[in-house]
């Protein structure tokens, strides 16, 4: 996301590249990085993979601070504010459509199989490593697009915006919403974005208490709905049948 944001923002600010092209480049740049990174890193499993990706995120952050031309720790200012809501809606709609159609496709079966039993998936002919790398790259493209759009929405980006905290809060969307179905993370993202605003509106002051409530809700979800809210809803839908 950071790479996408900086690529796109630098292109529009420094080189006056048209906005659509800059967003496109913001989507492609992280993919170019993710491909060589994914091949060695995806050999790791579970928590080691998580640590490796977090580590890489830190590398990007430190690089952004130290590479000349990025504005360093002060960040990039004066990014043209050209992202409109429908731009975001269009990209989101496209992504949701792809994820919706993914289920039932050859790739969808392969990914589902890898998640549930990687050895068995390989045994039925799924090239698990290739799928993981492709998924990693696709995720990078999405994050890059999001970064590029966000940079042209907020006028300013800084290296610390795309650090560990951001990675965790995005991961939470999937955990809270549920990652088994395409609309789970949507639900999670919507809820976790609206929740702080709702709390503010209902008079809960910003700061420690809000973070505490966020954390409490997260713990509750993990305890009572290990497959996320989507898993909870699906189970309820299935029960009467």
């Amino acid at each position, binding site marked *: 996301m950071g790479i996408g944001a900086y690529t796109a923002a630098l292109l529009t600010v420094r080189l006056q590249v048209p906005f659509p092209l800059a967003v496109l480049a913001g989507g492609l740049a992280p993919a170019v990085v993710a491909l060589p990174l994914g091949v060695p890193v995806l050999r790791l499993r579970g928590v080691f993979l998580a640590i490796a990706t977090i580590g890489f995120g830190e590398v990007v952050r430190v690089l952004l601070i130290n590479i000349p031309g990025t504005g360093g720790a002060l960040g990039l200012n004066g990014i043209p504010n050209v992202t409109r809501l429908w731009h975001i809606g269009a990209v989101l709609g496209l992504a949701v459509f792809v994820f919706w159609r993914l289920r039932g*496709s050859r790739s*969808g079966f392969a990914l589902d199989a890898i998640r549930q039993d990687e050895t068995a998936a390989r*045994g039925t002919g799924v090239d698990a490593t290739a799928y993981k790398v492709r998924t990693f790259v696709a995720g990078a493209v999405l994050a890059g697009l999001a970064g590029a759009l966000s940079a042209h929405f907020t006028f300013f980006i800084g290296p610390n915006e795309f650090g560990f905290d951001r990675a965790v809060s995005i991961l939470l969307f999937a955990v809270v919403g549920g990652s088994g179905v395409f609309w789970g993370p949507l639900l999670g993202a919507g809820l976790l974005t609206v929740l702080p605003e709702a709390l503010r509106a209902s008079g809960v002051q910003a700061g420690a208490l809000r973070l505490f409530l966020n954390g409490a809700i997260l713990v509750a979800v993990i305890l009572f709905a290990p497959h996320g809210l989507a898993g909870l809803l699906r189970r309820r839908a299935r029960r009467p049948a």
Partner: protein
Amino acid sequence: MSAAAAAAGAPLLAIEGLTRHFGGVRAVDGVTFAVRPQEVYGLIGPNGAGKTTLINLVTGLLRPQSGRVAFAGQDVTGWPAHRVAGCGLARTYQHIRLFPEMTALENVVAGEYLRRHAPLWRRLLLLPEDGREAAAARERGAALLDALGLGAYAAAPAGSLAYGDRRRLEIARALAARPRLLLLDEPAAGMTHAEAGRLVELIRQLPERGQAVLLVEHNMRVVMEACGRIGVLDFGRLIAEGSPAAVRDDRRVIEAYLGRDEDGA
């Protein structure tokens, strides 16, 4: 000799001097044998004889330290599992490996993965043939489930099935790939007498459909009734090979299972 070889046909699976050590343990130690097309070949041996290791070497889950595996005329030694599977080799596992959150039917359809014509781009374009292909795949899957007596559980999550049903579902998933060789790793484990009998019937039908079977099994009745030839592994070595009757009466086989007289066994 050449006439005999021609009569037997070229082997479908040829294993030559296959060896795999784990530390000082010679799990598989210079094993050579062949499975012919449309043959049911049984592999037996005491616990720890190296049967599962051998299957894992053949299917690409493990790499051999030496020796060769040829399948359908191709040298597949050391190939990754998904490429070996692509040559027409499907398997089941000693410890059942289903996709537990998928339904029984989805498991079977997933087993068709290699033959599936549902590329993502076609689904993205919402083409009608995609829907037809999906329906056809589900129909084929349902027919397989019926054939294995699992029709009633098509919509149940695989993880919720009873043990014997999960074993049969795993076989259904493997058959969905229409393999040229089916490797069964202890398929009768935990099955009742009647279930094992039906398994034997199923296995004996496969050669007529052009499929060969490599059966690893402890249940002697299943092995003796289902197999045309049997190989016996002991301490990683092939100690006997032949027809079920010949193997049953082989002195070395009896020793491997029961021990020698001088050991007091």
